[in-house]
């Protein structure tokens, strides 16, 4: 079984994100970038399937600038066998390479690589669209198991436990299928030093959107990006009556 794992290069989750002075987006220059945490979970899951003998090859894929090779190397240090970078200098964000464009790129790669399973993060922590997996499954006509917290692969089928609003839902999908990962699926390992060194020698293909026949012209226009208004400090009320009065007359919610 072959697994394709799409990953995204995003601002590291530890970085305090700053909006650019001209409100055109967030500051990306000289900011620490990392693999999207949900995608790390996807890589880990794929590696576990390989270690348990269920998968034979893991291909990590990303769309991004030249520098995104670093994130592919990280994926390969954790256990991906090879990597593909679809190179573009456009931001992988709304108004840049949008979820549908990403899904189309991935579709082209799935048709070329013919994996049995695509495992990807349920969303990226930068624009939080949470759409790419669903779009890709629809474009491919594949069954999808989103927000997975447990995964079992047996006899050409994958059983997925999903985290849904009402609790947990279990689905069985026929391969080929697409899975998006939730936080509780696994805890990604730390890359090992020998594997980091080996990852340098693994195959990393660099291609571009036109070679895959995809167009990255944005369909959305970003008008303005701003920081959310700062939260005002709370106050203490001295009685229930005062609280009701404030809710009625100040907040006007009752």
């Amino acid at each position: 079984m072959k697994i394709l794992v799409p990953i995204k290069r995003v601002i590291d989750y530890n970085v305090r994100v700053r909006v650019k002075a001209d409100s055109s987006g967030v500051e990306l220059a000289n900011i620490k970038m990392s693999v999207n945490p949900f995608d790390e979970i996807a890589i880990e899951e794929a590696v576990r399937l390989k270690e348990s003998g269920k998968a034979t090859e893991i291909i990590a894929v990303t769309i991004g600038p030249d520098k995104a090779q670093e994130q592919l190397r990280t994926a390969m240090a954790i256990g991906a066998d090879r990597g593909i970078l679809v190179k573009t200098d456009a931001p992988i964000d709304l108004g840049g390479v949008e979820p549908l464009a990403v899904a189309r790129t991935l579709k082209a790669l799935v048709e070329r690589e013919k994996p049995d399973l695509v495992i990807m993060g349920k969303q990226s922590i930068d624009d939080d669209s949470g759409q790419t997996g669903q779009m890709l499954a629809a474009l491919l006509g594949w069954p999808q198991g989103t927000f997975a917290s447990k995964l079992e692969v047996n006899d050409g089928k994958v059983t997925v436990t999903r985290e849904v609003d009402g609790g947990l839902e279990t689905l069985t999908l026929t391969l080929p299928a697409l899975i998006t990962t939730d936080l509780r699926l696994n805890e990604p390992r730390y890359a090992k030093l020998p594997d980091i060194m080996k990852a340098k020698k693994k195959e990393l293909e660099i291609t571009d959107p036109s070679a895959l026949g995809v167009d990255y012209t944005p369909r959305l226009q970003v008008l303005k990006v701003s920081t959310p208004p700062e939260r005002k400090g709370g106050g203490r009320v001295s009685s229930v009556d005062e609280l009701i009065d404030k809710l009625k007359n100040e907040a006007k919610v009752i």
Partner: protein
Amino acid sequence: MPVYSAPLDDIRFVLHDVLGAESLSALPGYEEFSADLADQILEEGSKICAEVLFSLNQSGDQEGCVLENGDGLTSVRTPAGFKTAYDTFRDGGWCGIACDPAYGGMGMPHVINTAMKEMICSANMSFGMYPGLSYGAFEAIHKFGDEALKTIYLPKLAEGVWSGTMCLTEPQCGTDLGLIKTRAVPQDDGSYAVTGTKIFISAGEHDLTENIIHLVLARLPDAPEGVKGISLFIVPKFLPDDMSRNAVVCGAIEHKMGIKASSTCVINLDEAKGWLIGEPHKGLRAMFAMMNDARLGVAMQGLGIAEVAYQNGLAYAKERLQMRALDGAKFPDKPADPIIVHPDVRRMILISKGFTEGARALSYWIGMELDISLKHPDADTRQAADDIVALMTPILKAYQTDMGSEVANLTVQIYGGHGYIQEHGVEQYVRDARIAQIYEGANGIQALDLVGRKMPQGYGRLLRRFFHPVQRFIEENGEDEALQDLVFPLARAFSKLQQSTAMIAQKGLKDPVEAGAASSDYLRQFALVALAWMWCRMGRVAQERISAGQGDKAFYEAKLKTARFFMQRMLPEADSRFKMAMAGAESLMSLSAEEF
């Protein structure tokens, strides 16, 4: 709760922009090394440090190590979580990062190991003792052991399933190893029966590894008196052929001021089976090889503690609201200004920053020279690098550990009462940092090593290895307008260093007491000049990047500002040290013991 995030931006700046460490890939054995690989390794290594090791630092301090009695033999339990953390660290291959690949190591350059050591010591200095000592044992066996010993011990040490110790100190001898009493008697099978008591043995007994490999200094029956009669032995806790228990037992553990999660043991050897490493009576030479590595390791403890203390002092100064700025409120909408507005608080933070960033450049430079000294194909280049490492080792050890303590104390001062109580975790840094000034040769001994051994070596050859490039730097950059405020103070401090060097060389030849009396101040003066040179080099790179419009402008501007702070408010200490060093021994020595 204290915070720590690895200063990867600054580490990359030093490695790539200032030192060009990727040039090491031209050396045989380092062909695979590259800037990308270095970044990737340090990035992953920093995760283990910041996430796994750092989270055990406070709990490890509070819990400490416990001596337990089980089936007649004692054992030491490390604090909760240490075993799991060690397993993660070991499984990741980090124990053998700089070890020879021929024996299971990863063969990465020492400069990368130096950066890793800094991060480990920032995250958890106690934890770092265990792999640190194993690495020292690996190097000693690698350098002096015969092939049979190497085959048995090195792969296990590189993998980290076995750990190492250095058993030098005895109750009656610390600094003066000539007084060693432990005896080794040759046996018919070629091994030795080793008997004696060793104290202050770090990692002497613990539950992290399957076996513990003690490197023990002892005397053979025919040994001459003093340091010329000590030999080095390998004494494993479990004998490697059948893993039966050897007669080497932990008698007690010490209750210490700091690094409480590091097990410090009394080790009793009772006819324990051991094997000779290197030649009989030449143990001191082997021990010095081990010590030199260990001294650079301890220097990284000073830097590591200073870095984490600096980060916390800075974070607190930005968030603690007290008083208003002297020239009026800076944050009128808040109940008070954050204390970082105050000049004296800034003084403390900037001393911390000026030291840590300068010492990072200094330490990594020496890490790189160590690589050149080991791997360069040209013998003269190797010798030159080896000279620099030998000269700078006592300076790094003493200065960086003194400053580790100082920065930890400054951080407590920034926190005020909140630093003095345990809750915020910064008083631990003061306690942990303190030992680094003492062990692996107390800092006074480092100063004697500098003036007594390193200075006269090769008629000043070691000194010239430092003086010449500094001189050249001043000549090449003295005309540069943009760097005037950095290069001029360096030039001035450098000429005073040459004066005190000449004075000590002359007076010290006639009267060693004169050299001894000047030694500590001279070492500090030397260290400050070395740091000033590093700040000039960093400032020059920052200036170039700004002019070329490359990289993060704010980062480079902060570098230049910190460089100026160093020149104006830290380097002047070199002047007072110069005066003290030049004052001579008379006032130090004239009081009789009774007159005190």
